[in-house]
């Protein structure tokens, strides 16, 4: 991570930077949501910063901590030429979960943003292909949100319940179909 890059970002955005910290040596800037696109472009193209790689893009849900805004979208930037890193975060409120896309700045953001939409329900404005990526289209809800129960299942296909019951009970000789077995054969 890089202290100098953080200082330059603060200098450049001034009021746009909401807070900064360097916990465990990771320089982080929380910036205003509306500025993310221009800031990313600037960070990529300015000499001396040259963050040409987006290492990672993800989101965090602070629902359980009761923080406002609820979500944070986290960008891990990396400069391959200057060997420096920077973490940029934007807060996203629950009522209006929209952030500007950066997928034309770094190509990789395309899928990463789709993943964040899929798992957290944060939309990215002007994204060319905002589909689910990890879950299926029929899935209802966003599973990594803290208020989505971990074991709430939404099956796409299931056998009839009685067949599952018998398979799980594993009655030897009974087979999986109801009424199967020597006695039934004799009766019929």
């Amino acid at each position, binding site marked *: 991570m890089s202290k100098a890059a953080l200082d330059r970002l603060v200098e450049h955005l001034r009021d746009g930077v909401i807070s900064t910290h360097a916990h465990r040596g990771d320089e982080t800037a929380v910036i205003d949501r509306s500025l993310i696109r221009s800031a990313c472009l600037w960070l990529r193209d300015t000499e001396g910063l040259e963050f040409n790689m987006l290492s990672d893009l993800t989101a965090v849900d602070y629902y359980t901590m009761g923080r406002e805004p609820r979500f944070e979208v986290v960008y891990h930037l990396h400069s391959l030429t200057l060997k420096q890193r920077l973490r940029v975060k934007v807060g996203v409120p629950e009522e209006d979960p929209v952030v500007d896309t950066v997928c034309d700045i770094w190509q990789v953001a395309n899928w990463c943003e789709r993943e964040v939409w899929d798992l957290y329900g944060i939309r990215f404005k002007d994204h060319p292909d905002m589909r689910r990526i990890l879950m299926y289209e029929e899935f209802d809800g966003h599973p990594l949100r803290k208020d989505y129960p*971990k*074991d709430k*299942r939404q099956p*796409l*296909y299931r*056998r009839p319940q009685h067949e599952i019951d018998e*398979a799980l009970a594993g009655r030897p000789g009974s087979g999986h179909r109801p009424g*199967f077995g020597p006695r039934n054969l004799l009766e*019929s």
Partner: protein
Amino acid sequence: MGLEATTGRLADAVAWARKYSLFTYPFATACCAMEYMSLMGPRYDVARYGAEFPRFSPRQADMLLVVGTITERQAPVLKRIYDQICEPKWVVSFGVCASSGGFYQNYTTLPGIDHVIPVDVYIPGCPPRPEQVLDALVMLQDKIQRHDGYSQRMIELEKREAQMKKKKKHGSSTETSA
């Protein structure tokens, strides 16, 4: 009596042939596929059991080996592949994730493939050692020789049902004629 003995023998012979020439369809999805590679490899050499070559077309296979985690998204795919395999067919659930979901007890993982298709042999282990898989193969071979297995039982049942219907029809027709 003589005919029955002959057909019984024949059925046994067919079963014997089947059990030593299992054609596998490996539905390999996750970690267990690594152990499956090992099973195919020179050390454990599944070829010794006649289940040598994986068939990647369900139409040519008679044993579905579900290797690895099946998610809710994959369940319909698995079901379709199972349906495409010709009768008789056997299903082996390879590893904990396929058998019961293992420690993925969450929104996306299927709690065992028996929620989707019937299973003949379960192999525990995460992933199972190739030895365990070979044990399971022997177990399945026994099962085949016994004419056991879900799909075989289904065939048998359908045959008998058809026979009964025939008999009934026949019986009723004779009654009316009498």
